[in-house]
């Protein structure tokens, strides 16, 4: 199943590339609409309590103001079980920054100005925003917390195995609150007319938005259109519609058909569109003399919101990674008066693998075994917990290939002994893994226009990943026509229903759908279809689902320099080698891996939303305060992949590439920083002061 790393053509260029480089690709806020109004939100300035009074007199007097909306005059929404969408339904305040009203005006400026003039009084209640391990706030998540609940796992006797182990690690790692910060802030234009509601919305799935917003307003799904042709990045923050979509649609009820536009400010994004919750993870590993794991324990404590539950489940990364006869994996939540967390690129895995792969490095150091070799020695034959065979698992190939290319064999394992000028130099490795998911229920329409030209429609979305291009390629391949003969339409509820862009499952789910729809089209219309021949179909159930464990894998290598005097950390070089099934378009895929790794560098070195517990909000809530890696922070980043043919995973053989790039990066960098300095920092991000001890 494993070949050499491939040397192929770069793949077709990005289909919407021309529109994007000429500035003509229209993002949500940019859709030309007639006579728009602008919304500015009112937001709670306390972390918990009630609104006791609202005086809108001064605001309503501002020139151009058309509406001041609060819970007093907002219409009742249908309770659909999502507290984020139930905006302005009561006077209760569950977190600082919560949406409690809106001003709608002729210009953005007048709306903002009027919003400042609304006088809001509160009844303040004591709040708790201090993330900590405290029985009063800690509980075990249930099915309400996650649709993919990972219950506690206990196999064998971890404590006994640890007591007998030749080498042990017992370490606690922490990861901070992190915000997605896609470059495009969330934006929506809402307009009601006789036909219903139209939303130009920046999201990861127009159908999901429709399926939630329609019942919220008690209208038929057919009466809600959601349009999202171009999305400026998302990383999970646009997976579920957030309160701003409901608020804007609610405001547009009052504007006699005039569209209402709202783009969040960067600062508002720190409270209204989710974040990766902070975690505190304890990992205990025990190994025999040869470094074979005899016990693996991973307990994660993660923040959630009292307002809306979310379970990150970082510890679950340790369920199926390495062989270990004794194993305990638990995830706990600490509920606080804070905004709702949500999925952020590789939820669970990004933080969980940071802890596990850092602990593996600590084990390698204490056992005196090379960290690449240690991982190879713990490679399981079958999935450790489920006992299922792997659909394909090429972690060893990634590690070996990566070690070879990175020059790993020349590495002196001793920490803190390489110095170049003021800089201590080290290298590190970590493994990465991400489940290969498939979301059912998508449909695609294949239509033969004429003369061998096909139109393919699927309500998928391209959040920058390249799905428009990859799906066009897969459709052309299945139709056996050149890519130029296929016109692909996505990004709207006008196309057939499709699952959301998430879980690295886009190309797997939508690609399989397109390929199966082409098959159905050929069955129905043959190879010489008439003009206008059309078939809508989806992918059936994968017979191998539940029969195989399906994951993509990777190995990340990093060179790190730490300034001996100041503790400043630099990452001049990284290499990632991945095994992720079929790579449909090398040109766009490479960027996905590189982007994931760079976000991993950013996670390792910079990203940290600092919460002021006194007020319950993030203080560095803009891009000057919340640092993401810039061009100058990134050295050479190389990506390659193993040629992997996985016949089980789905009809197109792709395993997903959007998230695995970030998994393991921070651990590789932290491990390299330890190798450079001899200082083991277990708290992200790796800021300078942590290396000065």
């Amino acid at each position: 199943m494993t070949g050499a790393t491939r040397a192929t053509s770069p793949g077709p260029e990005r289909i919407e590339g021309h529109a994007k480089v000429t500035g003509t690709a229209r993002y949500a806020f940019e859709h030309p609409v007639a006579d728009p109004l602008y919304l500015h939100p009112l937001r709670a300035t306390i972390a918990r309590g009630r609104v006791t009074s609202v005086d809108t007199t001064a605001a309503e007097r501002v020139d151009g103001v058309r509406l001041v909306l609060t819970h007093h005059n907002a219409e009742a929404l249908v309770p659909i079980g999502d507290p984020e969408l139930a905006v302005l339904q009561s006077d209760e305040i569950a977190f600082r920054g919560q949406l409690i009203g809106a001003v709608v005006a002729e210009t953005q400026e007048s709306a903002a100005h009027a919003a400042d003039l609304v006088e809001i009084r509160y009844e303040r209640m004591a709040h708790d925003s201090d993330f900590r391990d405290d029985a009063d706030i800690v509980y075990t998540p249930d099915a309400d917390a996650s649709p993919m609940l990972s219950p506690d796992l206990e196999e064998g006797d971890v404590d006994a195995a640890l007591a007998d182990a030749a080498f042990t690690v017992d370490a606690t790692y922490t990861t901070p609150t992190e915000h997605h910060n896609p470059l495009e802030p969330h934006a929506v234009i809402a307009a009601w007319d006789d036909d219903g509601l139209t939303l130009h919305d920046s999201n990861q799935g127009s159908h999901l938005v429709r399926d939630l917003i329609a019942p919220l307003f008690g209208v038929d799904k057919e009466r809600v259109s959601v349009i999202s042709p171009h999305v400026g990045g998302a990383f999970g923050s646009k997976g579920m519609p957030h309160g701003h979509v409901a608020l804007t649609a609610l405001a547009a009820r009052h504007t006699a058909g005039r569209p209402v536009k709202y783009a969040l400010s960067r600062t508002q994004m720190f409270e209204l569109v989710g974040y990766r919750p902070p975690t505190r993870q304890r990992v205990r590993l025990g190994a025999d003399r040869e470094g074979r794991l005899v016990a693996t324990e991973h307990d994660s404590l993660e923040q959630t919101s009292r307002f809306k539950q979310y379970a990150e489940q970082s510890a679950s990364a340790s369920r199926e990674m390495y062989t270990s006869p004794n194993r305990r994996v638990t995830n706990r939540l600490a509920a606080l008066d804070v905004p709702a967390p949500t999925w952020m690129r590789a939820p669970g895995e990004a933080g969980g693998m940071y802890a596990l792969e850092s602990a593996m490095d600590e084990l390698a150091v204490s056992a005196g075994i090379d960290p690449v070799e240690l991982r190879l020695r713990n490679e399981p034959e079958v999935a450790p917990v489920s006992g299922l065979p792997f659909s394909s698992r090429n972690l060893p190939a990634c590690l070996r290939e990566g070690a070879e290319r990175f020059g790993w064999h020349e590495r002196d394992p001793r920490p803190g002994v390489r110095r170049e000028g003021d800089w201590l130099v080290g290298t590190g490795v970590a493994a990465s893994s991400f489940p290969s998911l498939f979301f059912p229920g998508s449909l695609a329409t294949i239509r033969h226009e004429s003369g061998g030209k096909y139109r393919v429609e699927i309500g998928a979305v391209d959040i920058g990943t390249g799905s428009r291009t990859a799906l066009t390629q897969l459709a052309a391949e299945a139709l056996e026509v050149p890519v130029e003969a296929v016109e692909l339409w996505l990004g709207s509820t006008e196309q057939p229903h499709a699952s959301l862009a998430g879980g690295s499952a886009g190309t797997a789910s939508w690609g399989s759908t397109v390929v199966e729809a082409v098959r159905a089209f050929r069955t129905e219309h043959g190879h010489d279809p008439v003009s206008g021949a059309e078939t809508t179909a989806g992918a059936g159930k994968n017979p191998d689902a539940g029969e195989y464990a399906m994951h993509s894998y990777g190995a990340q290598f990093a060179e790190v320099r730490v300034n001996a005097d100041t503790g400043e950390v630099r990452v001049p070089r990284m290499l990632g080698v991945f095994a992720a099934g079929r790579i449909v378009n090398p040109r766009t895929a490479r960027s996905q891996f590189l982007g994931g790794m760079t976000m991993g560098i950013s996670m390792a070195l910079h990203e940290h939303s600092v919460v002021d517990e006194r007020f319950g909000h993030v203080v560095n809530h803009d891009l000057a305060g919340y640092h993401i890696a810039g061009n100058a922070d990134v050295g050479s980043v190389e990506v390659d992949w193993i040629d992997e043919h996985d016949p089980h995973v789905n009809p197109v053989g792709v395993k997903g590439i959007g998230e695995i790039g970030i998994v393991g990066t921070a651990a590789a960098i932290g491990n390299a920083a330890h190798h450079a300095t001899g200082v083991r920092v277990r708290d992200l991000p790796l800021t300078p002061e942590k290396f000065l001890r």
Partner: protein
Amino acid sequence: MRLNLTVNGRAMTADDVWEGESLLYVLRERLGLPGSKNACEQGECGSCTVYLDRVPVCACLVAAGQAQDREVGTVEGLADGEELSTVQRAFIDEGAVQCGFCTPGLLVAADDLIERVPEPSDAEIREALAGNLCRCTGYEKIMAAVRTAAERSGGTSGSGSSAGGDRT
């Protein structure tokens, strides 16, 4: 107030401009030119980079009134009709575009760099693009695109020095 300015070589006028609004808002909401993006409103991300009298600036930090009678160049003005500019073409060829939201600002910054420094080193490229954040691509492809654009423009980009630990 009324604002007169030249954008991409065309004289334009915007009425009822609020004195405190930014050139970026004028371009996007009043002149129908949303190519320049609004992503941070504080000059941190570079997505709104435009030429102001041929100098790259963040349009979000230019007060509308400061652009009176000035010349503005945006991403919409980079191509010569249907013909993409060298930098635009290179961004597509090298796969330097993902979500595309940082792209317009990067293109203006890169266009300016190649105009000033025909054969930029990697260090010069990183420096010139230091004010343009990208959350998707991871910068490698952007570097490649600028190198390619420089080569095609006649220069031969050196790719020797990558940003190492020491910033001496």
